[in-house]
């Protein structure tokens, strides 16, 4: 089933938000938060889960 079908249900705005950044996370858990879906925020990263 294609993604397009489910996206059509979205009830939010179409106004693009500013870039979302992750928090630093929890230092002692940094590498353990494997399923945290944390933001991989590139050059602005302060989320240590990404690196």
């Amino acid at each position, binding site marked *: 089933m294609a993604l397009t079908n489910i996206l059509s249900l979205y009830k939010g705005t179409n106004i693009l938000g500013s870039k979302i950044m992750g928090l630093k996370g929890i230092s002692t858990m940094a590498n353990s938060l494997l399923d945290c879906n944390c933001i991989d925020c590139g050059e602005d990263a302060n989320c240590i889960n*990404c690196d």
Partner: protein
Amino acid sequence: MDKIRTGWLTVTRKCNNYCEWCYTQNKLNCETMDYNDALSSVDKLYELGTKRIVLIGGEPTLYNNIADLIKYIVSKGIKVSIASNGRKFSDIDFAKRIVEAGVNSINISLKGTSEYEYLKYTKSNGLTEAIQGYNNLKKIGFNNVSLSYVIVDDDKTNFDNLVELIEKNDLKNIVFQFVKPVLKLKDENDIVDIKKLGAFVTYIYEKMKRTKTNYCLEISFPLCSVDEKILQKMIDENRIITCCHISTGKGLIFDTDLKLLPCNHFAEFPYSDEKIGRLSVSEISDFLDSDICVKLRKTAGSYPSKLCIDCDKWPICGGGCFTRWFYQEPDKIIRELKGGDVNGIN
């Protein structure tokens, strides 16, 4: 190429649990990723710049070639993690084999606070095995193991039982994840009461303050549902983690048949019915720039409500899991949340 930071490989849809809230509950079957396909997917993720691969399922520890696959991923200089229910690690020889293969981190998802509850939620007797698995990993010196627990409601007794279980078994490092919608085409999803769950964060904070357990919360709904002072304390303590990579386009999931998913919660809604993961790296890269992928990223990165535009918490909130707004009206809910005594703007 620096296209994808984190890749997830759905190595099998087999599972030894049948959790009632599972996002793949309609896809639990025996579909398994061919081992050569797994290796080729790793190669492609490597070319796309991936730094970490997470093995998911189903239950990834049921994948026959898991140790060899871990070794292969490590040989490419990519970190590898496993998201597991932990039961297989109750076999200490298996635990040793996986650790020796070079896994970097393991997250064990707890499915209940007692055997009775575990059985009720998963149709399996697995709690003792999961805790034994956690202990075995610690026993063999593997400390990069964490736990996760999905919170589905504001049941204080249940949470108290969970904390008791955590303390009794000396469990460390736990991620509390608030439930996310199971995607369905029809508007028949279980609607959660965001206001109640937001208020429950205060209970969690106060309760956990009295423990020595390191924890964090993945809040899948707007942070304006949480008491502002409690929220600030939790932010200061680095206890809040954001919950979506989709708007950045830096994560990619390979399903067992090499269809590509934007997130493991989209198990039934791949980017395309075509098996894009079988294409060449440059073709995959081009696909990730295609209209449907851009549309998805824009949708995930949009403000759910205009009321979010000026909110100073937006960078860490992002409105929560955007799939919630397939089933609930963000304007109505966020207006109610902000109209109260929390983080109020009107």
